[in-house]
C-alpha cells in the first residue's frame, strides 16, 4: 500500500479530491466563504484539467471526486463534464440549486444513470428567513429543483449551514427535506465557518486546521487542506491553509498534505462537525 492509500485507509485523509470548478456565483450569500457573487473573478479549472485530475486521482487511490465553487452549474458544460467525470470516479457536486430551469434539467437527464449526487443548500424551513441569508426566491427554486432532480433519478442531499440559534428550527427543516424526498442520512448540517464573508460579517465559529477534516482540494490558485480552506476575505485569498501552488502532478500536493498530517498532534480530531 502507498503512504497515501494507508492514510486514506486509516481515515487520516479523506478519500475524495475536491475541485473548485469556479469562484463566481449567481448568489451572494451573507456567510459565503469564498465571497462569491456574480461579479467576482471566475478563476475556473478548465474541464480537460478536471478530467485529467480525476484520472490521476483514481490512479493514486482516491475514490471520489467533489465539485464545488462558486456555483458549479454556471460552468456552461458542467452536465456533460459530470457524465465524463463520473465514468472515472463517483462525483458529488455542491450547488445552490437555483439554476435548474427546464433546459438545464433536460441536459441533466443522462446523469440519472451516472454516479453523480447533488448536494443542495437549504438553510431554513421558513422561506423569508432562508432567503435573507441566501437571496431572493432561493427557497422556492430549491424546493422545486429537489423533486425534479430526484425525478430524473439523480440522488440529492440537502446541506444546511446553521448560525447559532437556528437549531430550534431544524426539526421543521427536517420535515421539509423528508417531504421533498430526501432522507435523514442525506441531510448534512454544519455551522457557519468564520472565514470569508462570514468573518467580515462577524458570523460563525472559528476553526483551526485541526477542526477541518483533511480533504485534498484543488483550485485555480493552488492546492489546499480542505474544501473549507480556499476562502476569500475582502478580495484576498486566504493562504493559511494553502498546501502548494503546484497542483500537478497530484503527488506534489499529496506529499505536502502527508507532511502536514505527519506533524499533526495525535488525537487532534475535528470537534466542530464540519463536513
Amino acid at each position, binding site marked *: 500500500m502507498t503512504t497515501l492509500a494507508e492514510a486514506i485507509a486509516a481515515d487520516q485523509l479523506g478519500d475524495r479530491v475536491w475541485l473548485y470548478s469556479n*469562484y463566481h456565483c449567481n448568489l451572494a450569500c451573507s456567510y459565503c466563504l469564498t465571497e462569491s457573487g456574480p461579479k467576482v*473573478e471566475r*478563476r475556473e479549472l478548465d474541464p480537460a484539467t478536471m478530467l485529467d485530475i480525476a484520472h490521476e486521482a483514481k490512479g493514486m487511490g482516491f475514490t471520489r471526486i467533489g465539485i464545488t465553487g462558486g456555483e458549479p452549474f454556471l460552468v456552461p458544460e458542467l452536465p456533460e463534464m459530470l457524465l465524463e467525470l463520473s465514468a472515472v470516479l463517483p462525483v458529488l457536486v455542491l450547488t445552490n440549486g437555483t439554476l435548474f430551469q427546464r433546459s438545464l434539467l433536460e441536459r441533466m437527464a443522462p446523469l440519472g444513470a451516472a454516479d453523480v449526487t447533488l448536494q443542495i443548500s437549504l438553510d431554513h424551513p421558513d422561506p423569508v428567513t432562508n432567503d435573507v441569508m441566501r437571496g431572493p426566491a432561493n427557497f422556492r427554486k430549491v424546493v422545486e429543483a429537489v423533486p425534479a432532480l430526484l425525478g430524473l433519478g439523480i440522488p440529492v442531499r440537502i446541506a444546511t449551514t446553521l448560525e447559532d440559534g437556528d437549531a430550534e428550527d431544524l426539526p421543521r427543516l427536517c420535515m421539509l427535506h423528508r417531504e421533498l424526498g430526501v432522507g435523514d442520512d442525506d441531510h448534512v448540517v454544519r455551522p457557519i465557518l468564520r472565514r470569508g464573508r462570514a468573518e467580515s460579517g462577524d458570523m460563525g465559529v472559528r476553526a483551526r*486546521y485541526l477542526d477541518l477534516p483533511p480533504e485534498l482540494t484543488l483550485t*485555480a*490558485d493552488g492546492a489546499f*487542506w480542505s474544501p473549507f480552506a480556499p476562502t*476569500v476575505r475582502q478580495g*484576498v*485569498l*486566504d*493562504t*493559511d*491553509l*494553502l*498546501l*502548494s*501552488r*503546484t497542483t500537478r502532478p497530484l503527488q*506534489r500536493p499529496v506529499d*505536502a498534505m502527508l*507532511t*502536514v498530517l505527519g506533524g499533526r498532534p495525535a488525537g487532534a480530531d475535528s470537534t466542530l462537525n464540519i463536513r
Partner: protein
Amino acid sequence: MSEMTEREILRAPGGPRVRLIDADSAPLLVRDHFAGGDPGPIVASLAQVPELVGPTLPFLGTVLGPSWIPMREKEIVILRTSAVMGCRYCTDTHTVVALDSGLSHTEVRALRGDLPAAAAFPDVDDRALIAWCDAVAFGVEADIRPARAALTIDDARVVELTLLVATTVMLNRYATALALPTSPDVRDRLLQEAL
C-alpha cells in the same frame, strides 16, 4: 487572487510590490518560520508559494551562511555585490551583518562605494576579492579574465565565493524588483552608525 491590485501597488510606491505573508496567513507547511516572530521579507514573500520555501532557504543558508570560509570574507562579497548591484534592501541589511562580522566602519563604507577600496583595504588579496565581486556582478568577460588572474586563492575558494556573488546577485534582483522593505531594526542601526 492574492495579488496586489495595480492601484495598491501605485498607492504605496515605497512599499513591497507583493503582499507579504504574516503569521496569521502563513501556509501550513511554513508556519514554523513565523513562530519566532517576523521572519523577514524574503521568507514572508516566498511564503506566497510555500513549496519554494523548503528548498530555497537551506540553499541560501548553505551559500550565504557560516561555512569553512570566514564570515568576514563572505560579508565582503555579499555587501560589495549588493552595493554594486544597487540593491537597497541587501546593502542595508548586510551593512549591519558586515559590521557584526568584524568589518570596520571604514571597510564597510568602502564596500558600499562611499570610499575607494584601496583606502580601506591595504591587503592586496582583499582588493583582488573586491575586484572579483565587481567583475562577476557586472558580468563583462573582459573584466572577469584579469580579475580571475589577480586572485591568489585556491579553486575551492574561487568556486564558493563565485557562487556567493551569483546567489547575492539573484537575491539583489529579487529584493529590488519586489521592493522588499528594510527592517526597522536595520534602519535604526544604520542611523546610529551614520551609514
